[in-house]
């Protein structure tokens, strides 16, 4: 009899993702699904999809989903969780969505201590609209709306979301992780699972920022993109747990 050692998580659907080659959204989706399976939360979880590359995230999960307007996912999660406190509610947002148009919503959801989990995927660029400057775009990084590279004199420095939210007193769990190496995938899984576990235990707001690659819009090969992330993003966006409820 064959022994199953690897299978698709129950929380993932059979659909093939639309993501570009070398994009790590698919990996992060899988980690979320694994966490929900392992914690036994699938049947009471609702995801909130963003606007951006992950707008169709609901196609890849078997959990209930709502689709938000650009940046508003934390407000939607708030409305749902407050009225259905038994549900596990998570938002899945990119950097344009969360760190630009949705800054008010994320800060206040975090500061109110909404009992939700936020998966924040930071790939330093707008993906779906075709590679524009994001709040997290690196200094000097060329995008279609910063063709000479990000000029920090005009556009400031990249926004460190996890660091910023970690200054708030209310949120319980704030971490930054990445998925560009097998070791980091394992660590990211641990962070994501931890975040959902805190929510399941009624602990307030958790956010996991995941550094991600966008070879298509960075204009480099998938293999090179992991090195680019390691060399450019990782030093500026420290990979660490900022805040844990046990330390509060």
């Amino acid at each position, binding site marked *: 009899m064959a022994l199953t050692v690897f299978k698709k998580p129950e929380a993932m*659907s059979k659909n093939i993702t639309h993501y570009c080659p070398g994009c790590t959204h698919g990996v992060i989706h899988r980690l979320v699904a694994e966490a929900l399976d392992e914690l036994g939360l*699938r*049947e*009471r*979880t*609702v995801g*909130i*999809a963003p606007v951006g590359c992950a*707008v*169709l995230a*609901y196609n890849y*999960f*078997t*959990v*209930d*989903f*709502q*689709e*938000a*307007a650009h940046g*508003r*996912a934390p*407000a*939607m*999660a*708030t*409305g*749902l*969780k*407050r*009225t*259905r406190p038994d*549900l596990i509610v998570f938002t899945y947002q990119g950097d344009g969505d969360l760190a630009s148009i949705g800054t*008010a*919503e994320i*800060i*206040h959801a975090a500061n109110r201590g909404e009992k939700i989990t936020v998966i924040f995927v930071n790939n330093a660029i707008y993906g779906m609209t075709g590679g524009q400057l994001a709040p997290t775009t690196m200094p000097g990084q060329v995008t279609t709306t910063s063709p000479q590279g990000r000029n920090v004199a005009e556009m400031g420095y990249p926004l460190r979301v996890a660091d910023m939210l970690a200054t708030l007193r209310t949120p319980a769990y704030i971490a930054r992780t990445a998925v560009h190496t097998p070791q980091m995938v394992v660590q990211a899984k641990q962070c994501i699972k931890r975040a959902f576990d805190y929510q399941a235990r009624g602990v307030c707001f958790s956010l996991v920022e995941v550094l991600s690659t966008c070879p298509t819009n960075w204009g480099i090969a998938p293999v090179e993109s992991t090195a680019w992330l390691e060399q450019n993003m990782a030093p500026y966006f420290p990979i660490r747990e900022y805040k844990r409820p046990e330390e509060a």
Partner: protein
Amino acid sequence: MGERLLMKGNEAIGEAAILAGCRAYFCYPITPQTEVAEYLARRMPEVGGVFLQGESEVAVGYMLFGAAAGGSKVFTTSSSPGVSLLAEAMSYLAAAELPVVIGNVMRNGPGLGGILPAQADYFQATKGGGHGDYRCLVLAPASVQEAVDMMLLAFAKAEEYRVPVLLLADGMIGQMMEPVEFPVFAEPPSRYTSGHEEWATTGARGRGQHLVKTLFLNPDAAWAHNLKLKAKYDRIEANEVRYEAVDTQGEMDVLIVSFGTMARVCRTAMETLQDKGLKVGMIRPISLYPFPAQAIREAASRSRLVVSVELSMGQMVEDVDRAVQGKAPVRWYGKAGGLVPVPDDVSAAILGMVEG
């Protein structure tokens, strides 16, 4: 009915939401409707409901979405500039076919305007406000009692059609106190929308995924969705027209069309005009969308003049003109900026039109 209470419109609107079964209210403070928020901040915890002051009306719009898509009856109130911010979400709520009730206690604009009564959000309420092809059922109360009755109707219709329903009140309705009676239900209504089990995001336990979304990238699917919404709006136009007709029998010299508090001012002005021997009737639209076009057209065909009286620079008059279809001349009279014509202003203006 219960006992007769003297209540401020804003507070009565809050209590009516609770009576309708609503246990989730999200808000952002703005004059002249803040008493609704203050009232429900006290009342919602008493009845085991959710009260939450959001960071902006933009966020509040999506708190409504999240809660409504979870199957809960939800409510917010705001005033004109705040409703502009809610308008983004209203497009999404309509597209996602979510039942919500939104109260706009209108103040004067445009821009920051002022905090005094106005009806200048007529276009925004009846023609859109947000983007895309969508409609809200729009109800306009003229008294505190009617505001209460309308709140119950609003929740029922939001649920029946799965549409956003707008209660469009002017600042005076919110601020005035009048006697009001609340109906007593043998069985209190549920805090959840009936039938939500079929579509709401409550966790996929033993069933497939429920998805509440508004994205239709495939044009054929988007077309089909627009047709579905249109069919619903057609049903609303066929079944939900409401108005009050006053003295509209026979031949008339003047037919007034006016809504909300303004219609009550007109009611007093009518007496002055009738004392002068003029035959004056009035149609007060209660539903602004759907608009009582047919009733107005029929009455206009028996009148020498039709006057739309509004607390705006002339918005409803466009619908009145469209309804009348040339059967009588259509004129506008109104004030804006927070000024409210008194009965003598209205009667003098109409007299001037009749004699001029």
